[in-house]
């Protein structure tokens, strides 16, 4: 009798275990499926329009077939570089302040709250804000577009940096202090270094997010159908170009828009993988 009961319980446990595993697998599939689906659809729609011209030529005037998005690819790269130069240092410095130097102070709470609100600001509003702050006193420019992207990166980088720093064990900080290392040095060389894989992930998340942003660029970088690598002039960007082409009435432009979307996603993947590869070489194996 007792034995049968044990057997029954074991069978129930095995059943629950199987069900839980099944649910986990199902969730994984549900998470990955949209990405795979989008990617396959993009390849299906866009790959046929990809050729050398796409990467080397600028857009042709309306009515002429062909042309490419070389200016938009380069423009996006420049805008993202400017955005990262602004967003990453400010975001990381803010995160270090929140986690290490300002912990528990009113200023830190205010900064944290501001970052969270900033994170929730719709990107079109960010575009309008940078328009009135930077574009109105000057003019449409690649620089203002970079500023808009940079400001959008700040809250994500800041909050992930803070959270990653707080995950560094207290024992590691104590070890540095007990060696007679000044606190600021210990924070920069030990705590930040220990948290760096997580901080880099945060930066990559912010980067990938703003790489596809269109709205903040409409009022700032403005777009440009000619070559422009001058930060002081309107600049083309892949998302802007896709937006304009997708809304146009021409089939040829629609195809180019699909190709542009595919290139954008592949370039983001490449950039993120490259940063991961370069930064992981410095980290030792076996480190947790």
């Amino acid at each position: 009798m007792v034995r049968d009961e044990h057997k029954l319980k074991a069978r129930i446990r095995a059943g629950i275990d199987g069900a839980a595993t099944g649910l986990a697998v199902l969730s994984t599939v549900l998470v990955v499926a949209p990405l795979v689906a989008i990617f396959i659809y993009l390849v299906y729609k866009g790959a046929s329009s990809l050729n050398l011209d796409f990467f080397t030529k600028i857009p042709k005037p309306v009515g002429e077939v062909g042309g490419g998005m070389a200016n938009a690819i380069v423009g996006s790269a420049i805008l993202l570089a400017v955005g990262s130069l602004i967003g990453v240092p400010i975001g990381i410095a803010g995160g270090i302040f929140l986690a290490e130097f300002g912990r528990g102070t009113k200023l830190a709470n205010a900064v944290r709250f501001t970052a969270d609100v900033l994170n929730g600001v719709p990107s079109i509003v960010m575009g309008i804000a940078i328009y009135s702050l930077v574009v109105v006193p000057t003019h449409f420019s690649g620089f203002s577009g970079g500023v808009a992207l940079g400001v959008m990166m700040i809250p994500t980088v800041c909050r992930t940096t803070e959270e990653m720093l707080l995950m560094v064990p207290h024992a590691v900080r104590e070890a540095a202090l007990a060696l007679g290392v000044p606190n600021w040095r210990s924070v920069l060389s030990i705590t930040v270094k220990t948290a760096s894989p997580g901080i880099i992930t945060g930066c990559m998340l912010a980067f990938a997010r703003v790489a596809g942003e269109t709205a903040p660029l409409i009022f700032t970088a403005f777009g440009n159908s000619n070559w422009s690598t001058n930060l002081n002039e309107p600049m083309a960007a892949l998302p802007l170009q896709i937006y304009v082409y997708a809304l146009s009435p021409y089939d040829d432009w629609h195809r180019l828009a699909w190709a542009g979307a595919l290139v954008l996603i592949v370039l983001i993947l490449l950039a993120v993988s490259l940063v991961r590869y370069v930064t992981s070489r410095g980290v030792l194996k076996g480190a947790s």
Partner: protein
Amino acid sequence: MGVGIEVTNLNAWYGTNHTLQDINLNIPANHATALIGPSGCGKSTFVRCLNRMHETNPIARVTGTVRIGDLDIYNDITPVEIRRRVGMVFQRPNPFPTMSVYDNVAAGLKLNGYSNHHVLDEIVERSLKNSALWDEVKDDLKKKSGASLSGGQQQRLCIARALAVDPEVLLMDEPASALDPVSTAKIEDLIFQLKSQYTIVIVTHNMQQAARVAEKTGFFLNGRMVEFDSTHKIFTNPADKRTEDYITGRFG
């Protein structure tokens, strides 16, 4: 060479909790001194007052004097400077997880701006030999992560890291309590060798350990030091009834 430690009327608080009360104690140079007592009696707080780690906790407070060598550590010197002279080994091994074995040992010097590679190489080798870890790690010093060593090796790595900055005093807060018996024996051997060059203060829960490694032993209870004498006297003929009760296992 080690220096002696002279503690006068030391009191310490965490918030309103008076964790150390009127401690007076002379710790001899170049000997090992053990501190024993039940959990929460203030031994760890006491050693943390000797390198001013106590005050890294924002609610902590200290009064009294601690003289290490000829320095009054609460008046003559900054916390950062005193921690270079008074090394510390913690209960749980805490190597820097993203650093190699080499960088772990060199960390104290490098982070203070020291960068002469020949001298660093020499100091790392000497420190690892002094902590009896050299033979186990010498082949891939710069490739192996400190975190990939076993627990006992990590603790010896932490000892090497503390020795590399050439301290006069070494504080050890239950250095073997998270280790297996073989690793514990290695750490004890090490203490035995090191005490000719450094003044060692070791907190331990293990009374046999105190008896094996230390010349002097202090017994703490409820934030007070009940008795401080030669280890032999404490374990064979303690003057205080409470010490006797503790070492014979009647409480604690």
